[in-house]
Structure formats: C-alpha cells, structure tokens
C-alpha cells in the first residue's frame, strides 16, 4: 500500500472513532433518560432538548437576550480595542516606557480580573454598564500587551534602513511599523474579543437583568431543564460562530 493510501486510511479510522465517540455519548444520554430513569430535573431527554432548540429558533424568543449580549460585547470590545491600541502604541514608542509599563500590565493581567466584578456591580449597577466595563477591562490587557509587542520589537535594521532612505514619520509608520506590528495586534484583538465574550457571559450569569447568561440562570432556577440545555447549546453555537468569524477576520487582516 502506498504511504498516502495508508495515511488516508488512518484518517478515516480516526474520523470513525470520533463519530463513534459522539454517537455513543448521545446514545448514553438518551438511554440514561429513558431506560435508567435519571431524573429529568438533572438530565433532560435529548429529544426534548432538540425540540426546545427548534422552538427557540422558530419563535425568535432569543432575539431580545441576544441583542443585549451582543450590544454589550460590541461596546466592550470597541472600548478595549481603542484604549488598548492607543495605550500600547504610546508605551511602545520608547524602550524605557516599555521596560516601565509592560511588567505592570502583565502583572495586573495575571490577577483574575473577574474578582473585581462585585466592585463593578457596585459602581455601574446590575445593568449592561457593569458588563461592558468588565469586558472592556479584561479585553484591554491582551490588546495593549500585543500592541506593545507588535510596535516595540520591530527590527531596528528596518527602521534604520527606512530612515536612511529618507522616510518621513508618516511613511515610516505606514510602510514599516504598521505592517510589522499588525499581525501581532490582530492576534491580541482576537484574544481580547474571546475573553471579553467569556467575561460578559460570565458576569451575566453571576449578576444581571438581561442577556443570554441571565436567561440560562433564569431557566436553571426555574428547573426548566430542557429549555435550559437548549439555550446552553444556543449560546455555545453563538460563541463558536463569533469565534470563527473573528478568526477569519484575523486571517484576512494578516494577508499582506
């Protein structure tokens, strides 16, 4: 057998294992709810969950909560990205400032910022403002740190070469600094987007008035298990779609 044929067979086999694993998982879930009498308060029937999922999609009842969460996300990301890029750029302009501020930012970033959620709720209330503030804070750090890394560590040779060829400040920025830094900044933005999304859903789960996280908690407290599982699936799908979109934008922006 040729090596490529063997490889293809191996890939097929591992695909088969993956499919079998997922099917076994769903089958176990189904059997647990029908045969083994696991209480529907702990584990709802997968068929009921699927029916609820279609119901949610068909009636469009998710729109209100989705709009709240996405608005919070957009506002938080806009604040995090603009502040992060500006602060990062200003810091990156001198080696001295990088040495002073980068360890500070990295140090604060290593503290779990979710700890400050009670403070944010105290300052901004239970509404969207506290979620926006928390998401913006958490998203700010990866963006600022990556902007510093992008602009701060451009190869000195390139800058000297451009200068000696008579590049102006604007030209230096446009043709040397920006192309060198952009891929790293875009990676930072993707990381910032992901953590902002997570922290917004998380803070909606902990203390909120509306939003997708709030809806899941609301259903959990009412013990409405099937709709709750359906909403969890819905939120996971939304998060996956958003992450894929952002990764695609990142890859597109990195193309020269």
């Amino acid at each position, binding site marked *: 057998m040729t090596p490529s044929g063997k490889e293809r067979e191996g890939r097929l086999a*591992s695909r088969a*294992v993956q499919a079998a*694993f997922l099917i076994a998982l769903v089958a176990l879930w189904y059997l647990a709810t029908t045969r083994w009498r696991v209480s529907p308060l702990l584990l709802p029937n997968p068929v009921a969950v699927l029916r609820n999922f279609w119901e949610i999609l068909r009636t469009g009842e998710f729109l209100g909560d989705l709009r709240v969460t996405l608005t919070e996300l957009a506002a938080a990301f806009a604040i995090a990205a603009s502040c992060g890029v500006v602060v990062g750029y200003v810091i990156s302009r001198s080696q001295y400032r990088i040495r002073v501020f980068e360890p500070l930012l990295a140090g604060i970033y290593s503290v*779990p910022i979710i700890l400050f959620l009670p403070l944010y709720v*105290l300052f901004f209330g239970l509404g969207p403002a506290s979620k926006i503030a928390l998401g913006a804070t958490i998203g700010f750090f990866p963006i600022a740190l990556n902007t510093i890394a992008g602009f701060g560590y451009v190869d000195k040779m390139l800058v000297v070469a451009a200068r000696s060829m008579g590049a102006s400040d604007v030209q230096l920025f446009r043709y040397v600094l920006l192309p060198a830094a952009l891929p790293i900044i875009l990676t930072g933005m993707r990381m910032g987007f992901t953590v902002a999304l*997570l922290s917004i*859903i998380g803070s909606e*789960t902990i203390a909120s008035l509306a939003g997708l996280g709030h809806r899941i908690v609301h259903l959990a407290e009412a013990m409405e298990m099937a709709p709750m599982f359906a909403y969890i699936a819905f*939120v*996971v799908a939304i998060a996956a779609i958003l992450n894929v979109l952002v990764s695609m934008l990142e890859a597109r922006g990195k193309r020269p």
Partner: protein
Amino acid sequence: MTAASAWRRALRRPWVARIAVVVLLLALWEVAARWWVDPIFLSPPSRVFASLPAVFDTRGVPAALRVTFWELAVAFALSVVIGLAIGLAVGLKPFARKSFMPIILLLYGTPQVTILPLFILYFGIGPASKIAFGVSHGFFPIVMTIVAGVQNIKPILLTSARAMGASRWQTLRYVVFPHMIPSFFAGMRLAMTGVLLGVLLAELYVSTAGIGYFTTLFTQNFDPTRLLGLISVLAAMAIVLNEIVRRAEVHFGRWHTD
C-alpha cells in the same frame, strides 16, 4: 548633587519608575475617593489598608478564605492528575491523538461558563461545585501541553532507547518524562490561571461558606472598604499562587534549552 538630579537619575531605572507609577495611581485613587466620589461606592486605599484587620475580624471571613484556598488547592491537584492521565493516554499513541485531540480542542473552545448552573445543580452549592468547575477550567491546558510535549520528542531518541533495549516503562521513565517536564510546568501555569478563574467564577455565582458569600454581602451593604480589602487579599492570594507556579516553571524548565 541636587535632590532633583538624584531623583531624575533614580527614575532612569525602570523598577524605580514602575514603583513611582504605582504610588502615583494609589495617590490618585486616594484623592478621588476622599473628595470626588461618594463614599458608599469607593474608599481611599489608606482606609482599605487600615481596615484589613477588621476584614479578618469579620465573623466567618478567615474560614471563608481557608475554604476558598482549599478549593483552589484541591481543584489544582485534581486538574494536574486528570490532565496528566488524559494527556498521556491521548498523547502517547499517534492514533489516539489524531482521534481524540479534535474532540478535546472542541470542548476546550466552548465557553464553559454557560454550564456553570449545571455544575451547581449536579454538585450542590458547597465546595464540590467550585472544585469541579475549577477542574473543568484547569485540566485542559495540561492535556494540551502534555500532548504537545510528547509530540515534540525527537523520534530518534525513542528509537535509540528501544535499540538499546529499553522496556516500555524505561522509555517512559528516562526519555518521555524528562522531555515532558518543561511543557508540563508551562501547562501547570496555565492550569493555575484556569483554576483561579473557574473557582472564583463559581464562588461569585453562588456560595454558602466561601469568599463569594462575603463579596455579595459587602456589595449589598454598600461597604466598599471591606469589599476592597477582601478583594485585595484574594488578589494577593492569586498573585502568590501564580508566582509559585511560574517560579517552578522557570526552575524545572531550565535543564534543556534548544
């Protein structure tokens, strides 16, 4: 030499300037809290610092800190054990890696915070749900780094070990484990970040004995002094735990450089 030039010379050292920035921020906070902001929302850092003994004297807070620390420690230990077991089981066989890594990556990519209410439902509102949620955040990074570490071992080392007649266990003991150590400790650092996030999220969501109970209490009583005091103690705990794991990573990751 005048004082001004000595000051300027001292500021040239980055760490002096860094401390100066921190002091400046604290001073700004102090001024803002004393004169601009309503005292039911923010207290100045001097008062927060002075209130730390009062925070520890609050009935139940020392016990709550102990409970939270215990949850973090157990969750971290379980993450390491489970992550190591799954990582080795998946990583050592190329076929298992190709089959199960996509599933693990898929699970790792889903926002686990959406299923936080399920953890409470299954494990109760006590420490068990916090530990379980912390483990769900902590063991993925270890699996990832172990699989990556095992994958990066040069095949020639494995082949030559076998050629010299090493048994399966000897190959693991003398080739695989030593090469895994740097990535294992890198994974432990990420796992600590994850465990801190998971445990604190679950604590803040619902808590009977841990720290989340008191953050909620202080928030609802508009007691920013003690809230800030408690948060600073927790932040200090997180910094210390992160630092321990980071030091361990630097220490144990040093032996081979390539």
